[in-house]
């Protein structure tokens, strides 16, 4: 009898700890969920502001997005495109392109291109390149990534949209060619895609909020 009680007590005790622990986590999660969402949006907004100046558009860039499936752009995954309008006139599109061939896996990029095909800015969202060598693609470490703003498919000509070692015009880094090559190639592909599909990208009806967006996400 006392053995039975002992086991029961221990079981109840374990259950109580599991319940208390879980409810503590649940309460904290509920309390901070909004703040976390706000943080994530703020980070995204700041990143978008770096590739396209906020004065150039007046729509809600964060919500006005579509998903594109193109094997060349997203390395097999859909690419989110944020669309900028000024008084309903298309201004630019910001692609979350992926360079699949970095030195150490994929490099995720934000590439802003305006309606004239001119790059408004490029930023690296995430990468796992070698610290001190390949990470010079980060805006905080060198100004290399700034070199793309103002360029377009004609400047330089498309066959020279490569790093110098491949006969192009963009610098590679000392000791690191693969990383910049992957980034330059991804930007060139994005520009070519935008050149071909600009009208459909910017002319599709703007989704109201995130719901329409969710639908295009499921394929």
């Amino acid at each position, binding site marked *: 009898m006392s053995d039975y009680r002992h086991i029961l007590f221990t079981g109840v005790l374990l259950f109580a700890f599991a319940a208390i622990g879980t409810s503590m986590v649940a309460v904290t999660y509920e309390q901070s969920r909004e703040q976390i969402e706000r*943080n994530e949006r703020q980070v995204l907004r700041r990143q978008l502001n770096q590739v396209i100046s906020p004065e150039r558009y007046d729509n809600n860039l964060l919500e006005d997005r579509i998903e594109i499936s193109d094997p060349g752009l997203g390395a097999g995954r859909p690419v989110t495109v944020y669309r900028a309008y000024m008084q309903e006139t298309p201004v630019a599109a910001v692609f979350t392109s992926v360079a699949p061939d970095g030195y150490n896996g994929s490099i995720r990029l934000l590439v802003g291109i305006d309606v004239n095909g001119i790059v408004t800015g490029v930023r690296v969202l995430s990468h796992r390149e070698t610290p001190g060598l390949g990470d010079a693609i980060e805006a905080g470490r060198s100004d290399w990534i700034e070199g793309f703003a103002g360029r377009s498919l004609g400047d330089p000509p498309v066959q020279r949209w490569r790093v110098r070692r491949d006969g192009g015009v963009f610098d590679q880094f000392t000791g690191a060619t693969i990383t910049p090559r992957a980034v330059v190639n991804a930007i060139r592909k994005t520009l070519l895609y935008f050149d071909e599909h600009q009208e459909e990208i910017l002319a599709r009806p703007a989704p109201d909020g995130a719901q329409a967006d969710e639908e295009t996400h499921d394929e």
Partner: protein
Amino acid sequence: MSETSYPEIARNGLWNNNPALVQLLGLCPLLAVTTTFINGLGLGIATTLTLIISNSVVSAIRKLVRPEVRIPVFVLVIASTVTVIEISMNAWFHELYLILGIFIPLIVTNCSIIGRAEAFASKNRLRAAFTDGLAMGLGFTAVLVTLGALREIIGKGTLFAQSHLMFGELAANWSLTLIDDYRGFLLAVLPPGAFIGLGLIIAVKNLIDQRRARRPVRAAAGETAPA
């Protein structure tokens, strides 16, 4: 159970039984995160907080929890604590959270936390357990910060870079550039630099301990010391 005195608890955590230098526990986050001073400090504070809370809770419930189930209960306490800290950091120190990334949830697997729960908190009174958590946490933080500062100075030539991630706008210009036009020393930033740096810190600690141990002996032995 003999009561351990508070100064001794503090000495143990900070020096004699330092989790990172003597017990060599929690090395995975220690080596991975310490690329800068601020990263080290961030992980150090999170770990200290976890240690204090888990030690206190474990001590408070030590008479209630039967020995057969103590380990699952400790794991529950530690896992809930770390998750709460992780969510809170995501909410209030978002950018630091983005940098420390997976190493915050990994505090759960830092053996020094369940080690302290089992070896100390489950056998001692609340205040002693609290002090032990604080001392062990600070000892761990001290090593994180030292290693972070070393690697930052040698690897990048800066100190306190990105302080604003933790201290807000106030700290925007705390970053010191110690060496202008420093080209960087890659080894220090990469994982080998972490191992070498930690090895050197442990060596220095052992050297100090040896010197200390030898001094009284020499005084006692006088001229009869071996040649």
